[in-house]
């Protein structure tokens, strides 16, 4: 390692790559600079890969080239084909692959440096205590990220139920699994000596970590997904950092730490938006125990036809649309924008109120409305829009439920008590487009639906919005 190429040039190129990642991430925090930021980060990645190939020198490239081609093709096809409404599960899936890769690298090092050369002794003695320790953490965190993200993907895709799956005594089971993984990891790093034993413990650790990831995510329900996806995103970064420790590669440590930090910030923002702690999201199994007590029959619900709703919209001077997950499910973002544009042409002021946890990932609604060509300056955050509802003529709630539930404010016993909500009930008329009166994710009754100023319009969001567009158009034509 005395030649300047490996001891000076390669580390400097890695440093350049790390700096580019930082500038790239910084770019991603502003609307005008975001696309350039993303390109910078991609460039940094390319530089890092090229640098690594330079560092390796002449080796057998067959596996490397094959892996890059297969992975690149799969990633590109998935990224270009995915519908914008399926973005949360896509992000979860990509994230899982990143975490899985970190775990596999650590596994590969154990095999390549200890088992295959037939070395005897503990991993700590052969690799150094620090590498052994971080290799085990890399396997643990990476595998948890992989299986946790896959479960999140399956829940979001609808392959398995989005409802929380609550095992009996799950806290005990989860704690035992977590302790078991830690014990297996420590044993792997410091005590296992015989090669067969080492391989066995490594496999046990990997499998147990995968199970731990599954156990952590199955009790989490659909509406808590923004928190979980952010948290798994953070974990995939930490896993990459741990791999960096094993390899003694500062670029991996830095990039992983950046991702870990950004994921944690998003996790924190999502938790604050729900007025819940991270521990509460993981351990409460929301909608499980408390839901039954709060659900009740609806009385005083008035159902209206799209025609009647259109008449209210037509006279409204200010309209606020409140999109929720139902908008994504019905793929109704384009028709929602069409209705907004139509009302705007008639002289109404139209804005879109975005709750921080509306949808299934941070910023989900913003992406959908951006796809439908809604000017992002018309999207208003909760704190800014709440005082405005008092002077709003009509609110159109499309596929949202818990984020507009007044129970969060006036029923201290409610599972969502204390969660900041959009105060749509202050508007003159609230129109709620909903499939049925079924409870939202939290499994609780929404008293908004019983208010005197609330009009329920039952049906599929896309179909109802289309009818509203037709009705408003025919009113315009008749006038």
């Amino acid at each position: 390692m005395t030649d300047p190429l490996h001891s000076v040039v390669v580390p400097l190129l890695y440093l350049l790559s790390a700096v580019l990642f930082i500038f790239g991430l910084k770019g991603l925090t502003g609307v005008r600079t975001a696309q350039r930021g993303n390109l910078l980060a991609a460039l940094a990645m390319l530089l890092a890969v090229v640098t690594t190939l330079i560092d390796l020198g002449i080796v057998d490239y067959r596996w490397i080239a094959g892996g890059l081609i297969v992975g690149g093709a799969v990633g590109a096809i998935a990224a270009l084909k995915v519908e914008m409404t399926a973005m949360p599960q896509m992000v979860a899936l990509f994230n899982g692959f990143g975490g899985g890769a970190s775990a596999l690298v650590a596994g590969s090092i154990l095999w390549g440096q200890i088992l295959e050369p037939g070395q005897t002794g503990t991993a700590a003695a052969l690799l150094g205590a620090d590498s052994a320790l971080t290799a085990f953490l890399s396997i643990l965190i990476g595998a948890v990220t992989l299986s946790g993200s896959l479960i999140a993907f399956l829940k979001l895709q609808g392959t398995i139920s989005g409802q929380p799956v609550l095992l009996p005594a799950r806290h005990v089971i989860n704690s035992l699994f977590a302790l078991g993984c830690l014990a297996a990891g420590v044993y792997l790093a410091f005590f296992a000596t015989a090669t067969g034993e080492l391989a066995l413990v490594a496999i046990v650790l990997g499998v147990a970590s995968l199970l731990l990831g599954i156990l952590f995510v199955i009790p989490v329900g659909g509406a808590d997904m923004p928190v979980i996806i952010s948290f798994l995103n953070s974990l995939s970064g930490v896993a990459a950092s741990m791999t960096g420790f094993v390899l003694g590669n500062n670029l991996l440590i830095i990039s992983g730490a950046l991702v870990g930090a950004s994921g944690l910030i998003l996790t924190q923002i999502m938790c604050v938006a729900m007025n819940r702690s991270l521990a509460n999201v993981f351990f409460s199994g929301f909608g499980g125990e408390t839901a039954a007590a709060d659900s009740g029959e609806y009385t005083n619900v008035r159902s209206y036809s799209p025609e009647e709703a259109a008449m209210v919209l037509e006279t409204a001077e200010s309209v606020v649309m409140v999109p929720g997950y139902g908008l994504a499910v019905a793929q109704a973002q384009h028709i929602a924008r069409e209705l907004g544009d139509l009302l705007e042409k008639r002289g109404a002021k139209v804005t879109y109120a975005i709750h921080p946890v509306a949808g299934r990932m941070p910023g989900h609604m913003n992406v959908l409305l951006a796809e439908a060509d809604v000017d992002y300056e018309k999207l208003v955050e909760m704190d800014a829009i709440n005082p405005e509802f008092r002077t709003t003529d009509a609110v159109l709630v499309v596929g949202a439920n818990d984020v507009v539930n007044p129970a969060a404010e006036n029923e201290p016993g409610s599972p969502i008590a204390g969660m900041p909500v959009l105060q749509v009930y202050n508007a003159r008329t609230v129109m709620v487009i909903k499939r049925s009166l079924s409870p939202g994710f939290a499994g609780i009754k929404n008293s908004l639906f019983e208010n005197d100023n609330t009009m329920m319009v039952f049906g599929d969001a896309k179909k109802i919005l289309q009818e509203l567009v037709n009705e408003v158009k025919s009113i315009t034509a008749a006038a």
Partner: protein
Amino acid sequence: MGALLVGLYVFVLAIFVGFEIITKIPPTLHTPLMSGANAISGITLVGSIATATSGETKVSTILGLIAIIFATINVVGGFLVTNRMLGMFGGRLKR
């Protein structure tokens, strides 16, 4: 100072850098930031490449190969999908 400690210094300082640059993120960009950061976490690709340098079919190289595939899916998919999303935001800016 051992390698672990140096790495720990780098790790902790990088976390602070991460916090500093991302704290003021507007909600509009939460999703692109997450998927962009997600693509960056595919940096583990660099580590995986170094583990698959032998043409032999051994456990270590097979694990390395799968790691390369996983990480490349993460990297290529992540950056492309972020670019696609940001293109939609960008469309509004030009008008």
